[in-house]
């Protein structure tokens, strides 16, 4: 068994945070917004002017007597992404990003919710309340959250089967998730789809696809329709490093480039296609370059701010110039699915290493704490809240009934023309499709 840990670290060294992980420069915008607390504003501006170089910023708690309400502060904060973007056939966006306390706390909460949801799904699967396949996204939350922050609901997202968190980011509810996973009526697909088939068309989330790679041409098709309809919106088609070698991807990309479709192909590179490491499946694992004539960007997918920046950039690019590829360097803590232990093809050290060094939620937590945007207790309270939300939704989902038997025959067609459909015993169970 090759030790992937050393190979991974060697090839990914640039992505690991350099020792000065906290090297962030905090400087006020040129027009400081009105502050309810002039003392605070003065204290912070004095503070900012004295700390240009990268060093751990210590909160001046003694100078701050009044804490701003954490959830509503939209004062711009300027930060840098963990690493610069690497570009192919285009000019990389700046690694300087604008955010705010409000945004960072929203990111924290959303990712913590997703994390909790996926871990709860693990337990439900082991309790046999979830059947079949269940592909969990924990570790990759920053991609879903950062992407959503850069988009509007007019933009489309389509992904494969690791779709629970993407569905949530598009406005799905926990009840819809857990009810669907448990095959109940309140599920987003009324229990008929299952884990791999979540959809939310009213938010332009197009699923939820089980066949590796199929969602990419479909996503280019959405982009085609958007352009055709002159909607001034884009489609993000997500796929994994395993799907990146699929021929249909290149066929769809070729057409998208010929026709200047507003398609953004996002490779969520978690480095393993089921049990196969990327270097065993791809001659060139530089997925952001695989578009050849199509530009690409490599992004630290564990940094939600980098993801947002890259998606903003990509959206602007695609609307003007056609398809672009984003490679999100990310990681999944779970195995490929609940049937895969995830430890036969990678070491536990590698998994814990990523958790310690690159976890997206921890990253935001450290940012929030180091900028004194909230206390540790406040963040822990958010995590407790989120845990309760998840537990409540699960309890609700468990009470929810299974689909009626008549649902067997609904939605086979949009227009059934009155034809008959049959159950297993065609003389016993039959229905007329409306």
């Amino acid at each position: 068994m090759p030790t992937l840990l050393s190979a991974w670290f060697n090839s990914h060294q640039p992505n690991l945070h350099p020792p000065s992980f906290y090297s962030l420069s905090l400087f006020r915008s040129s027009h400081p917004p009105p502050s309810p607390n002039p003392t605070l504003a003065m204290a912070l501006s004095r503070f900012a002017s004295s700390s240009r170089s990268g060093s751990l910023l210590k909160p001046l708690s003694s100078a701050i007597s009044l804490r701003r309400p954490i959830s509503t502060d939209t004062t711009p904060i300027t930060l840098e992404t963990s690493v610069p973007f690497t570009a192919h056939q285009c000019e990389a966006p700046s690694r300087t990003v604008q955010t705010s306390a409000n945004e960072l706390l929203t990111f924290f909460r959303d990712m913590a919710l997703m994390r909790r949801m996926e871990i709860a799904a693990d337990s439900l699967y082991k309790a046999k309340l979830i059947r079949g396949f269940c592909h969990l996204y924990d570790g990759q939350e920053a991609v879903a959250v950062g992407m959503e922050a850069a988009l509007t609901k007019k933009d489309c997202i389509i992904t494969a089967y690791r779709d629970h968190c993407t569905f949530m980011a598009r406005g799905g509810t926990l009840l819809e998730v857990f009810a669907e996973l448990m095959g109940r009526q309140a599920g987003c697909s009324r229990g008929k789809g299952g884990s791999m088939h979540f959809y939310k068309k009213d938010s332009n989330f197009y699923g939820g696809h089980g066949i590796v790679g199929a969602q990419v041409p479909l996503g280019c098709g959405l982009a085609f329709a958007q352009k055709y309809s002159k909607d001034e919106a884009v489609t993000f088609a997500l796929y994994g490093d395993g799907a990146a070698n699929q021929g249909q991807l290149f066929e769809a990309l070729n057409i998208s480039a010929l026709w200047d479709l507003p398609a953004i192909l996002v490779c969520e590179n978690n480095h393993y296609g089921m049990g196969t490491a990327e270097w065993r499946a791809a001659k060139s694992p530089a997925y952001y370059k695989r578009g050849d004539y199509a530009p690409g960007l490599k992004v630290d997918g564990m940094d939600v701010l980098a993801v947002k920046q890259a998606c903003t950039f990509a959206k602007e690019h695609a609307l003007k110039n056609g398809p672009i590829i984003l490679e999100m360097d990310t990681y999944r803590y779970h195995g490929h699915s609940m049937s895969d232990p995830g430890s036969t093809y990678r070491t536990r050290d590698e998994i814990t290493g990523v958790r310690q060094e690159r976890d997206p939620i921890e990253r935001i937590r450290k940012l929030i704490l180091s900028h004194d945007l909230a206390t540790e207790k406040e963040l822990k309270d958010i995590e407790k809240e989120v845990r309760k939300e998840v537990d409540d939704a699960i309890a609700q989902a468990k009470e929810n009934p299974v689909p009626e038997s008549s649902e067997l025959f609904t939605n086979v067609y949009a227009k059934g023309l009155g034809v008959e459909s049959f159950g297993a015993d065609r003389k016993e169970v039959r229905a007329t499709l409306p």
Partner: protein
Amino acid sequence: MLGVVRQKMLGQSLPKIRPAVSVLRSYSSAAKQMTVRDALNSALDEEMSADPKVFLMGEEVGEYQGAYKISKGLLEKYGPERVRDTPITEAGFAGIGVGAAYYGLKPVVEFMTFNFSMQAIDHIINSAAKSNYMSAGQMSVPIVFRGPNGAAAGVGAQHSQCYAAWYASCPGLKVLTPYSSEDARGLLKAAIRDPDPVVFLENELLYGESFPVSDEVLDSSFCLPIGKAKIERVGRDVTITAFSRMVGHALKAAEILEKDGIDAEVINLRSIRPLDRSTINASVRKTNRLVTVEEGFPQHGVGAEICASVVEESFAYLDAPVERIAGADIPMPYAANLERLAVPQVEDIVRAAKRACYRSVPLAAAA
């Protein structure tokens, strides 16, 4: 609006009363039990050992030991030249397999499930099935496409389809559907040795099931003939045809029917193409009644072909309309209760057999 209509069966006459017939088991008395998984693994192992041209190719077949552990230990034994992990690119590696077969090698191409074979179906049909014909015999294609087929448990619409009818409609292909461990060993060995493209449809839910295997079955030269069905249970009153997992259901149904004095003959088709029409017709000529059972969609399914064959060749012998039990005519739902309604159950087979024997009880009116 939808109406789920239960058809009323008008009470038919004359229940057939027969003395209880002892069930003849047609496999030899065996001391050893073997799972289907081990049967497939040992068959692959033996054929790879016997012929260096045989190699295995597919996703996770090597280092991962097989997605369902069918190829466990083979990488260690035969090395990476002969046990090849592929990227997730079915069209690509299926085509590569067919090309290798053109040149004279004997690839065994694994699809993680046959749902993914649709990505490669052009190569299976156009590159493999038709080549020997188009080239007037120059290009035989000794390839085996194997993997799990049909429904598993709760895997949803895109992962549950049965492809037996689709592949079996294509001339140039041979399509095999093992049920027991004996079937798995004998048919896989036959498939690998066969000079034509074989679609080998396994079933995930059968992998863990154990069956008795005789010494003859365990011998490395063991091989079953392609195109011959097996009569799993001899009977007199009604013929039930089934393949793959449904054979188990049919056998259970036969036990229930026996208590009601109906002696069912259960045929394990083993081979969908060529279909063993003579065994099926001989059985129907004996019993005069037929129930076909399959997991897949009913329209244009295996049962439809069997029914047509029987009507064409043994019409005068039929005493009742042919009954078809199949998967529901809908995409596979995820919810457990709906999935149960979408897949044939033992009671469906029992009910259909009773109808064929004019023994069904009139159903209550629909609510």
